[in-house]
Every structure is written in C-alpha cells, then in structure tokens.
C-alpha cells in the first residue's frame, strides 16, 4: 500500500514552508475557506503525478516573490522508503517542472505510479459541463499512473498528431502516410487501454452513484473516436476514418479522428447529465466516478491509491460520509472540510489556518475522534 509519510512544501501557493508528518487512515484538514486546505491536497497530487489539476493561472503555484516552488514527499511502498520531489520554476515566462526520486533527476514517466493518488475536487464538475478534454483527463490521469506503457504511448501519440497537423498546415508535399502508421498503431493501443479501463470503471461508478443516494440511474460510457472490439477492428476503423476525413483534414489543417477526440458520456436516466441533472447530482456523479477510479486502481495494482477528497463529501449526510470513508481496504485518505467529518473510526484532524507559515497552520492539533 503506498503511504504518504511526510510532506515538505516550500514556496508553493500560500505556503512559504510546511513540514507535515502524516499517518495511515483518515486525516481531515479542517479550516475556513481560503485557509489553504486545497493547496495541500494539490501539493500531494502535484508531487505524485507531476501535474497540477488546476490548469488556470499556473504561475500562481509559486508563492509571490519566490522564483521556485518545491514539494517533496516521503513515501513508503512495498516496504521501501522513497522520496519524490518536484520543483516548479518559471523560465522564459513558462512554468517548468523537474522531478526527482531519492535526489536523482527522473523523467515524469518514471515517477508516475510510485505514489498512486485519486483526487475528487470541485473542479470535477468541469467534467460534466466542460469540454471532452476534461473527460479525457479522467482517463489519462488514472491510466498514466497504472501503466508506464500507456503514458509512453500517449506522449508519443500527441507528438505524432502535432507533427501530422504541422505537416498539413505547412502544405508539405506528399501525404501524411509517414505519420499515419505511427498514429494508428499508438492510437489503437491507447483506445484499447481506455476501453478496458472504462469497462471496469463504468459499473463501479454506476453502483457508487446509487450507494451515495444519487437519484435516478447514472450511466458512464467510453465513446472512442475509433471504436472496435479488437485491435484489428479499431485499426480498420481508424484507417477508414483517416481516408474518409482526408480532404477535410487537409482543408482545416488538423487531425479530425483518433484518441485525442475521444469522450466519456455521462448520462442520467438516458439523457445527458449536463442537461438532466441538478448540481447536487453532478457532484454525486463525479464523486461516484472518482470512487470507482480508486476501486479499479486498487484492484489493478493490488494496493489502494491515496484518496484525496477536496471538499467532496461536505454535502453528503452522515451515513453516506461513512460509506465513502469506510472503504474496506484501509486506504490512506486526506480530506478537506470546513467542519468535522462524520466517521465511525478514528480520524486525525489537522487545523489549517489562513496564512502561509507552517507553525501557524499546524499550531492546533486536535485530539483524535
């Protein structure tokens, strides 16, 4: 079971420095809005995945007046202690990141999966109302942690699509065949991973939705751009679409089919969730999807990822909070809340206060409940 033992933060968001020892089980970060509770979960997510889930105003990740932010996590996994670290810095006006494992610079692809995490946050509502890109992130965030070869294929795939687009936009002589072969091979592999993953997530998410008291029947379905039951049929479909869309692609200078156009359908009682549900139902649906993601990752790797719940259970009643937090397999849970959560077992409560100084933030450590 991957465990987060200790978290060091320097100049990240509103923290100038923090050094937090973490326990197994459930830790509740309790404090007023704006105190910096979410920033702590973001720090964990960032060091685990190399990416922030907040995409807007990235430069604010670094504390004002500082040139670099650093988050370091001491983790234990399969009996081994490891230290993973990410440094964010601004170079030429762009935010860059550098990751390390036990002090040695390490590419992101090799850091992913060391501290597996699942995060449920208010931003998840963007998956309901926003574009397909947000919903594809739902697939990629989990799969990149589960499978280095998925991460590798996705990375290359995006590069191939960018090259293919550039080829068409520049009106380069000859066709795109040199790119098509790679695009199809990588894209088919990505679609196969996503299909298999969603085949397992969808029923779990649907079950969680009713367990959390969601009204109606939620349906979650992967909508691949290149559908097919087997790699062969996906490849056939891909080739057919590339041929059919060729003229249009050249005119628009962009690649019009493939996994970068995939989507995930979220529907309630047979109609789009976006059009059919209330905000409360959206929240329940997204939490259900995240809990399903956690379940699938746990069964895939044999160990529960760390569950990060950012303001995700506040609206649930006591019974349902217990259902979420009473996960059978002893997951480590970090949650933020403005009040104390309702849990049967022990919870460690850390008070987060406004401001950036660790001592002030961690000044009050309440008793165990």
């Amino acid at each position, binding site marked *: 079971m991957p465990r987060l033992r200790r978290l060091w933060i320097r100049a990240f968001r509103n923290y100038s420095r923090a050094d937090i020892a973490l326990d197994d089980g459930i830790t509740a970060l309790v404090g007023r809005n704006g105190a910096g509770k979410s920033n702590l979960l973001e720090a964990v997510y960032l060091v685990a995945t190399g990416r922030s889930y907040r995409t807007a105003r990235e430069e604010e990740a670094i504390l004002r007046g500082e040139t670099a932010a650093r988050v370091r996590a001491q983790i234990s996994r399969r009996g081994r202690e490891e230290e993973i670290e990410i440094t964010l810095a601004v170079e030429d006006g762009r935010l860059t990141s550098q990751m390390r494992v036990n002090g040695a610079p390490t*590419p992101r*692809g*090799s850091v992913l*999966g060391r501290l597996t995490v699942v995060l449920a946050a208010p931003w998840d509502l963007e998956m309901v109302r926003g574009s397909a890109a947000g919903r594809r992130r739902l697939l990629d965030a989990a799969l990149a942690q589960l499978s*280095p*070869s998925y*991460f*590798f294929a996705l990375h*290359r795939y995006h*590069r*191939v699509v*960018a*090259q*293919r687009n*550039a*080829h068409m*936009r*520049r009106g*380069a*002589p*000859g066709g795109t*065949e*040199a*790119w098509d*072969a*790679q695009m199809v091979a990588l894209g088919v592999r990505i679609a196969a991973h996503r299909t298999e993953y969603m085949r397992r997530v969808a029923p779990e998410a649907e079950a969680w939705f009713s367990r959390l008291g969601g009204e109606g029947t939620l349906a979650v379905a992967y909508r691949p751009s290149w559908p097919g039951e087997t790699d062969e049929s996906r490849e056939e479909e891909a080739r057919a679409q590339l041929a059919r869309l060729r003229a249009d692609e050249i005119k628009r200078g962009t690649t019009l089919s493939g996994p970068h156009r995939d989507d995930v359908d979220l529907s309630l009682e047979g109609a789009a969730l976006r059009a059919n549900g209330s905000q409360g139902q959206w929240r329940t649906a997204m939490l259900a999807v995240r809990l399903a993601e956690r379940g699938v990752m746990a069964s895939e790797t044999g160990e529960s990822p760390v569950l990060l719940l950012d303001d995700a259970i506040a609206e649930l009643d006591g019974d349902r909070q217990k259902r979420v937090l009473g996960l059978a397999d002893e997951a480590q849970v970090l949650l933020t809340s403005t009040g104390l959560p309702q849990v049967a077992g022990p919870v460690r409560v850390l008070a987060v206060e406004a401001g950036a100084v660790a001592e002030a933030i961690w000044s009050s450590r309440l008793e165990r409940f």
Partner: protein
Amino acid sequence: MDYPVPLARLIDELSKMPTVGPKTAQRMAFYVMRLTTEEAQSLADAILGVKAGMRYCSVCFGITDTDPCAICSNPARSGAVLCVVEDPRDVIALERTREFRGRYHVLGGAISPLDGVGPDDLKIAELLSRVREGGVTEVIVATNPRVEGEATAFYLARLLKPLGVRVTRIAHGLPVGGDLEYADEVTLARALEGRRDL
C-alpha cells in the same frame, strides 16, 4: 561595471555555443585570458583548423577531413550494405561497435514539420541515387527511435523498397548488460513490444 570590450566579445562568442550559458561563458573566457600566448594560439588554431580542415563527405555526408571520407574510400568496406543515420555523430557511435562493415549515409536530421524540416531538407535524393547506381542490396535504417525518426524510416522504406533493395530497421529495447530490474519502465515496455519468438 561592464567587462572590457575584448573580454566581453569573447564571452559573447562563447555563450552562443550549445549548453553554454552566460556564467559558463564567463568562466571559460577568464580561463582563456589566463592562458599563455602559445596556448591561446593553439586553441585559436584548433578552431580555425576545424573550419579549414573539416568538410562533409560528398558521398555519405558524414564529417571528414578527406573527400571522400575514410569509410567511403576504404575498399575493405562493403558498398552492398548502407546504414542510414540522422547525424554524423551517429556514424562515430556505430563505428565504435566495430561490428558494421558496410558504408553509411547521413541524412542530416529527421523529418519534422514542427521544425520546418521536410524530406527535401535531408539527403534523401542523394540516398536514392546511391541506391539506383546499383551494388546496394540492403539499407539499414538507423534513425533515432523518436517519432520523427520513425516517420523518416517509414518514408524511406516506401521510396527504397520499389528499388528492389532489402530495407531493415535497427531494433530497440533493453541495453545489454542491464538487469531487467533496473531498466526504466518505458524501455522495458518498448522491449516487451519488440519481443520475438524463441
């Protein structure tokens, strides 16, 4: 205070070099300043010597001080097998293996529309005419395993196969001498993909 003009000029020139930032350039310039006149002359001669003495081989487009290069003019090397690489440095790397007894062809890069590099910017026409001249039975495509190198390999294969030569691609996978345990995930994943029957 700014550096005096002669020193500033050297720092300026040095910092144009790849991987050399302003700080490294300063350090190098101070080193040069402290050299004896003979040492400085020798450094300057070496720089000018590279310009005067090095050129691209007119056959394979590798770097050389004689034209054609030592490999192209060596009768012991087989002209039947051509190894196609992106960069002259790749020739040096492959030569270090002392395994390959054929000749080379240096493309000068890989197809990359994002960087504005198309087939016409590479020595592809020259490769085709070398093959058309006859005597070549196999072309080994040893471009880098990045997406650009793969696309270039695909492009070359389509042009070369109709000429009746065997076209092969170098394998990629685990480094020899490395334990599986220590291979990075991506290399291992690729090696799994490139597995073969026993």
